[in-house]
């Protein structure tokens, strides 16, 4: 899922000064799963913003809504009346959903209520950890299903950096396992350690975010 985290409320207060009618919107998909932007979080944030703005000396009227998905235009119609009535929107969906709302309701300023942070799994209750960085040239087939792009602090492709801690954790973050240690362990368990010594073709980074904005075109699906 795409994960996001609330921005500091102080930052949101800064955005909202001068506004009077604010609509807080969430998304019932990824950001609900990571407890940042689902209905529960929207209904927590909306009254908190009302209180924060009251205490800031800039009272606002706050309305709230949670869309099924904020990244599909069909679902945005559900807030058309509320958006027309608001003079600002705070979205706690991911950056994708936020931008679609900003485009759809272009006359109303949209402010982010979250920072979009990663493509992660929920590893344990209350703990989300990265799994993918959308690199555009997946190497999971060569690394025993463990991603060295998203899960290595240096995105190393040919083995560990040499700094792996003695307990097997990453030298950059002691709470994160060294992914190359896990790759080696899985390769060993499968009796395929030799595979990791094979020379691989260079990875194609041109299809990653570093290659500029992505534009994916499928002629067969176009009208």
């Amino acid at each position, binding site marked *: 899922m795409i994960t996001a985290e609330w921005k*500091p*409320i*102080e930052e949101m207060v800064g955005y909202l000064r001068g506004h009077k009618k604010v609509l807080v919107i969430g998304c019932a998909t990824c950001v609900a799963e990571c407890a940042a932007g689902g209905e*529960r979080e929207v*209904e*927590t944030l909306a*009254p*908190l*913003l*009302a*209180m*924060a703005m*009251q*205490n*800031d000396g800039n*009272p606002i009227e706050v309305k709230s809504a949670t869309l099924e998905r904020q990244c599909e235009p069909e679902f945005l119609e559900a807030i058309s009346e509320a958006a027309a009535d608001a003079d600002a929107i705070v979205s706690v969906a991911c950056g994708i959903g936020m931008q679609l709302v900003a485009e759809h309701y272009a006359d109303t300023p949209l402010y982010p209520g979250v920072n979009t942070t990663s493509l992660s799994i929920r590893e344990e209750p209350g703990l989300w950890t990265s799994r993918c960085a959308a690199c555009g040239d997946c190497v999971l087939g060569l690394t025993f299903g463990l991603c060295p792009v998203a899960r290595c602090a240096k995105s190393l492709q040919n083995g560990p950096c040499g700094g792996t801690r003695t307990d097997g954790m990453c030298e950059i973050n002691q709470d994160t396992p060294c992914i190359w240690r896990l790759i080696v362990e899985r390769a060993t368990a499968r009796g395929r350690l030799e595979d990791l010594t094979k020379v691989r073709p260079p990875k194609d980074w041109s299809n990653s975010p570093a290659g500029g904005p992505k534009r994916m075109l499928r002629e067969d699906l176009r009208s």
Partner: protein
Amino acid sequence: MANNSTADFQPQITLLYCRQSLAAEVKAVQGNRAGDGFSVRLVLLPCSSKVQLPHLMRLLEQGCDGLQIAACPEKACQHLVGSNRAEKRIARGRGLLEQVGMGAERLGLDRGAGLSLDDLMEMAGQRAEAVRALGPNPMKGV
């Protein structure tokens, strides 16, 4: 109009209490009661684990001065970890209330078993004392 004078401030407390925390012979009560220097609205919960941040924040947005949760002792929760989860949510809620300038003390959780109505009133009174220094909820009358 909100009463902004701290001297004659009579905190309005909402106390949400777990049914299981009452003594067996005590009849569950709900509704408004007057305490000594404060008033309280008693709300019965089937378990303290039912408290969620949206409910708590809405109650404060609507102007109550303080919110008190009465939960069972740690090992006595009928849902095993329900009251622990409630406690963690309350801790997060308190942090958020501090961030928005309302003051963490507007929200609190205490545990107890075999409680009487007087015990609940005492808990509400303690919350009232904790919010007294913060003054009336600025959302009152908004």
